[in-house]
């Protein structure tokens, strides 16, 4: 589903590369933790999958397609196949829960009828039944992140990228979010989650890819989190 072929990303010539010769394969339906300290290259990985940036060397394949060969007018179509969730939720503060999720469908031209039918289902999937008309500021952090997840999956993407989705949440709430992500993964969506939350990684027992200074230093099938040796933990 996602393949990195010896990918190097350099933001500017003087500093060391953000990703340095990374080769990685994520299969359809997999759940992968991307771990490592801040600045280890996790966010760069996600930006390259979304074609927010392009690789300096090497090739990034998403759903079998080299993203370097996707013309700019086709990039929106690439992104429709990928859902993204962030640490800071990024909800629209002046829209209700329903409207926030519906927004993702409106902007790609879904009909009102389809939206009315789909959004409540998705809100139920993430455990937000009956909160359609709440405003984001009336929700807890965990609930806000559920809205963000609902928005990311409402267009049924094949891939869900999560960049530190539990970074702002307490451990109990975080486990709730992980259950939601796991359920989405069970339904066949490939999930790549960047994190440095060791509790979560150790509990889930999923594939763990560890990045350090832009290189893959570990790739365990049912890995655990090993504290960052020599790197600074946030």
């Amino acid at each position, binding site marked *: 589903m996602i393949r990195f072929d010896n990918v190097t990303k350099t933001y500017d010539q003087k500093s060391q590369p953000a990703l340095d010769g990374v080769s990685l394969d994520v299969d359809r339906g997999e759940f992968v933790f991307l771990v490592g300290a801040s600045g280890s290259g996790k966010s760069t990985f996600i930006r390259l999958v979304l074609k927010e940036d392009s690789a300096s060397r090497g090739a990034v394949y998403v759903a079998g397609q080299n993203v370097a060969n996707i013309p700019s*007018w086709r990039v929106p179509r690439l992104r429709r*196949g990928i*859902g993204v969730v962030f640490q800071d939720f*990024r909800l*629209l503060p002046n829209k209700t829960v329903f409207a926030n999720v519906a*927004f993702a469908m*409106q*902007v*790609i031209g879904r*009909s009102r009828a389809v939206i009315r039918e789909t959004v409540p289902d998705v809100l139920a999937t993430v455990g937000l039944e009956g909160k359609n008309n709440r405003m984001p500021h009336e929700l807890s952090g965990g609930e806000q992140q559920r809205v963000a997840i609902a928005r990311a999956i409402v267009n049924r993407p094949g891939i869900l990228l999560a960049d530190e989705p539990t970074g702002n949440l307490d451990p109990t709430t975080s486990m709730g979010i992980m259950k939601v992500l796991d359920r989405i993964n069970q339904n066949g969506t490939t999930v790549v989650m960047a994190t440095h939350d060791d509790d979560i990684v150790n509990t889930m027992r999923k594939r763990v890819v560890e990045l350090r200074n832009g290189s893959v230093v570990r790739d365990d099938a049912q890995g655990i989190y090993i504290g960052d040796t020599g790197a600074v933990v946030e």
Partner: protein
Amino acid sequence: MRLAFILSEIGSGIRRNLSMVTSVILVTFISLTFVGAAGLFQLQINQMKGYWYDRVQVTVYLCVDNSSEASCAAGPVTEDQRAAIETKLRSDQFAPYVDTVSYESQDEALGHFRDQFANSPIVDSVTADQLPESFRVGLVDAEKYEVINEAFSSEPGVDAVSDQRDFLEAIFRYMNWASVVALVIAGIMTFCAILLIATTIRLSAFSRRRETGIMRLVGASKAVIQLPFVLEGVIAAVVGAVLASATLYGASRFVIDGWLVNTFPQTAFISSQQVLLLVPALVVLGAILAGLSSLLTLRRYVKV
């Protein structure tokens, strides 16, 4: 669905940015008013050219007692000279250029003079023998005045060949200057309008960066992301263009229909209907102006 969505985005954009949108409307209004005024001056010049050039005559003045030209050294024109000039004017050689020839005697000249200066005290002191008799020559093509001038100005008995166009050209020169000034002002104001539209779009893009960021992530197309911004600028500019058109129309009704036509009844003025012809041009110009400047701005400030 997408159209409704884009329209609602435009509405919220304009509401959030009301003061900037208002200033865009006003600046395009002023600049397009000057563009339109320059256009009206040109229309008026063409109108007068078309009207007058058809009626312009070349006048061949014949010698009188007090003529000072060398060709008049022999004194006033003789019967033979007058007949020779008329024969030459009506000859086959000049047939392609000359349309009509009419003769004006000194008495007729005095009559015209009295009509023209009816209210002036100078009328009483002028007598018929001071005014030259002349041939009034209507031309097939008013531009071919030089042919007549060359052929007749040194003919014995001819005092001078004069073309009324010289006088008209002076008027047109002044009107051209006026339209150039209007165009310069229009240019400066248009430049202001472009900068202001760019700034407005920038502010608008900044205040909606959260929305556009999410739109990008969920795969909204470039058109859906950028169109609300472009249309916001275009709508403001079109409103400005409509205001400019209304102002020009009102001014033409008031100044031309209400005043100039009555004051100068012999002059052909453009009609208010012709002003209406300018409206689509101004609206399209405003829309293009806003569309281009917002597209250029968006390229820099709204990533897709």
